[in-house]
């Protein structure tokens, strides 16, 4: 095809070190946080599986699961474990809702500016609100 001869467009990603200096629209914030939350879940995957392991394996290990949040884990105090769990809860919720937004846009082709803006705000707010609700149950 003739258009293969045209110079190919170059798309640059904002580098991590530049994020702070960019004023991103809400959709851009949702997008970068989708990445950040995904990477966080990836890195903490062993901790998540450890929680799954001790919580389902036996009555005794279930005790270790609950005490990790109160008595702590090794040299880490309980409140720190709770904070990590809170970060995981936010990451999961944000990734979940942002993913649903993607599926919705793919299925309905709603890619207008207005929809992108509104759904991005809903994603950000809903993620934080649900995190606050579950965080309240976690800490109090």
């Amino acid at each position, binding site marked *: 095809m003739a258009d293969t001869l045209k110079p190919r467009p170059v798309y640059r990603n904002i580098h991590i070190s530049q994020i702070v200096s960019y004023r991103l629209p809400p959709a851009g914030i949702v997008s970068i946080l989708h990445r950040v939350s*995904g990477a966080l879940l990836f890195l903490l995957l062993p901790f998540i599986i450890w929680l799954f392991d001790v919580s389902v394996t*036996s009555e005794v290990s279930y005790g270790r699961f609950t005490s990790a949040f109160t008595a702590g884990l090794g040299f880490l105090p309980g409140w720190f474990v709770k904070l990590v769990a809170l970060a995981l809860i936010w990451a999961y919720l944000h990734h979940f809702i942002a993913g649903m937004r993607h599926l919705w846009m793919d299925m309905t082709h709603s890619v207008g500016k207005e929809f992108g803006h509104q759904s991005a705000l809903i994603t950000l707010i809903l993620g934080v609100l649900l995190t606050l609700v579950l965080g309240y149950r976690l800490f109090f």
Partner: protein
Amino acid sequence: MPQINTKNYGAKRIVVGAHYGLADWLAQRISGGLMGLLTLLVVAQLLLPGEMGYDKWSAIFSAQWMKVLTFVVILGLAYHAWVGMRDIWMDYVKHVGARLLAMIFTMVWLLGCAGWAIQVLWRL
């Protein structure tokens, strides 16, 4: 060679040849949907009446159909995370050697995690 339509996009797009990431794009969405489904199923069972504790929690994952679904989701999660992390490395790590190392680390990390999770699941 398929005939080139004037309208080669949307529903009319000819989907042949090199897929340029279509398979991964689709796998990302299907595995994401499965994870969402499992999440909702776990939450729904947690909301059923009954005292929250070890018995209730472990019973959810002991049911054979939940084991099978969770097993599929673990594999789906590994692939989902592989596609996502690979995209991150490709976007930010330009040095070929460093990118290769990052990808190898990602594979080992994900395969190890998947194996561990399946082991936990299957001895229930």
